[in-house]
């Protein structure tokens, strides 16, 4: 897989004395969807935070489109233009409307002209089926709606890779579906996605590769049919029997 969009090699990360990631390697080709599953505290969220340099790491290599993240001279803005991220708690800016949230970064970070950005923001809100909520503040939206605005906000930076950090974990069960539909739509359009998720059915249907992490290592990874149909490792079997 020489043309992998994201390559992680032998990544190590420690918080003080605790090593939370102990040598993780994975590759995500362009257009693929990788799902990372595993018990709480297995380092999943930390792992994807290493990818866009939100969390520094000590050892190993992370390359996005050939950009080495573990480089002291890393141009973080250049990296983050390529990598969008959506968080568990949405993290919309509460003093700005849905439309303004989508427009802020392209205008303020990329310095693109307002008219062009505004047209694109409306199109993105339409894509996540929230064009009628353009002028609502985050406080007036449901969790699922806020999360879809957050996805639109990330997409406005025109990323090549989207990171999703347990984006449905804080949602009411009835709104999980509307967010997953949006992500599935992105995946079908060919967006490269890395998801940390507890939605096993979603992983089964959308992922190209499923990774199971436990205590800082990747225990097992396989395409979903094989992963869910015929897991090899005892820890994977135990975990799947608990969550499925």
């Amino acid at each position, binding site marked *: 897989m020489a043309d992998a969009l994201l390559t992680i090699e032998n990544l190590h990360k420690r918080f003080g004395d605790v090593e939370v990631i102990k040598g993780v390697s994975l590759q995500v080709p362009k257009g693929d969807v990788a799902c990372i599953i595993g018990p709480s505290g297995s380092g999943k969220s930390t792992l994807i935070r290493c990818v*866009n340099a*939100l969390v520094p790491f000590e050892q190993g290599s992370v390359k996005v489109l050939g950009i080495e993240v573990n480089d002291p001279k890393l141009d*973080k*803005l250049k990296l*983050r*233009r390529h*990598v*969008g*991220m959506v*968080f568990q*708690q949405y*993290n*919309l*800016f*509460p*003093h700005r409307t849905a439309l303004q949230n989508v427009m*802020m*970064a392209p205008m*303020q*970070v*990329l310095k693109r002209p307002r008219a062009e950005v505004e047209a694109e923001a409306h199109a993105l809100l339409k894509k996540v089926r929230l064009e009628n909520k353009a002028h*609502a*503040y*985050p*406080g*007036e939206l449901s969790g699922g709606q806020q999360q879809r605005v957050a996805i639109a*906000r*990330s997409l406005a*930076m025109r990323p090549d890779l989207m990171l999703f950090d347990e984006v449905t974990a804080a949602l009411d069960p009835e709104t999980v579906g509307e967010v997953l539909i949006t992500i599935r739509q992105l995946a079908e359009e060919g967006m490269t996605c890395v998801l940390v998720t507890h939605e096993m059915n979603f992983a089964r249907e959308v992922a190209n590769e499923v990774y199971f992490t436990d205590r800082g290592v990747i225990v097992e990874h396989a395409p979903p049919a094989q992963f869910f149909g015929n897991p090899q490792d005892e820890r994977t079997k135990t975990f799947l029997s608990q969550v499925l």
Partner: protein
Amino acid sequence: MNALAPIADWFRHLNATTGINFTVFYDPFDATRFVHGLWVTIELSVVTIIASVLVGVIGAWGQGVKSAWVRGVTWSYVELFRNTPPLVQIYFFFFGLSAVLPHTHNGFGMAQPLIGGFAWASISLALYAGSFNVEIFRSGIEAIPHSMLEAAEALGYTRRQTYLNVILPLGLRICLPALTNNLVNLIKTTTLAYAIAVPELLYVSNQIWSDAENVPEMMILLFIIYIILVGILVALMHWWERSLRRPGLGT
């Protein structure tokens, strides 16, 4: 002046019949002095409010920078000005610091300090109230969830862009009530400029009651005027607070 003549007549009559003597309403000399004093108080308040808010914003920034030297200077400034009496600070600037600064000579050949009483009072009061504003803004900034800053960072914002577009607007909303309190205090504290002979409201009132021997009347007038001045500030701050209010954000 003609339109005010009935008012002047009424207060003159009040004095003649009851001895309650509001000279500022009928005596042109006292009226001029008093209005001038009111104007100086308003000027002093506006200048120090703006300057102290700027000091607060810069100080709150200074507390968060990487340079230990800048953080140390900011911390020392806040501790010094927050924990010492404002009157002592004014004396320090006007009598202490001014004495060692170079002097010029005025038209009569007498030594004249480069910085006058009004300017020293402004500097001193702005630094005094500013030290509280630093702490007020810091508490507002610290109340912003870290995840909000992480979101800005992930979108490619630099530290400066995050400060201007996320931290400042959110932090301001959180700390506006505390800021209002401090600025109300600042308006009241401008009366300390009296001590270095800045002709503000209390100073001119003292001049007037020394001449007219109407201390109780002038005191009542002072109370009423400060209530009005502070009332105007509070109304403006509440209007600002309301205009910044967003659904689901704060109260």
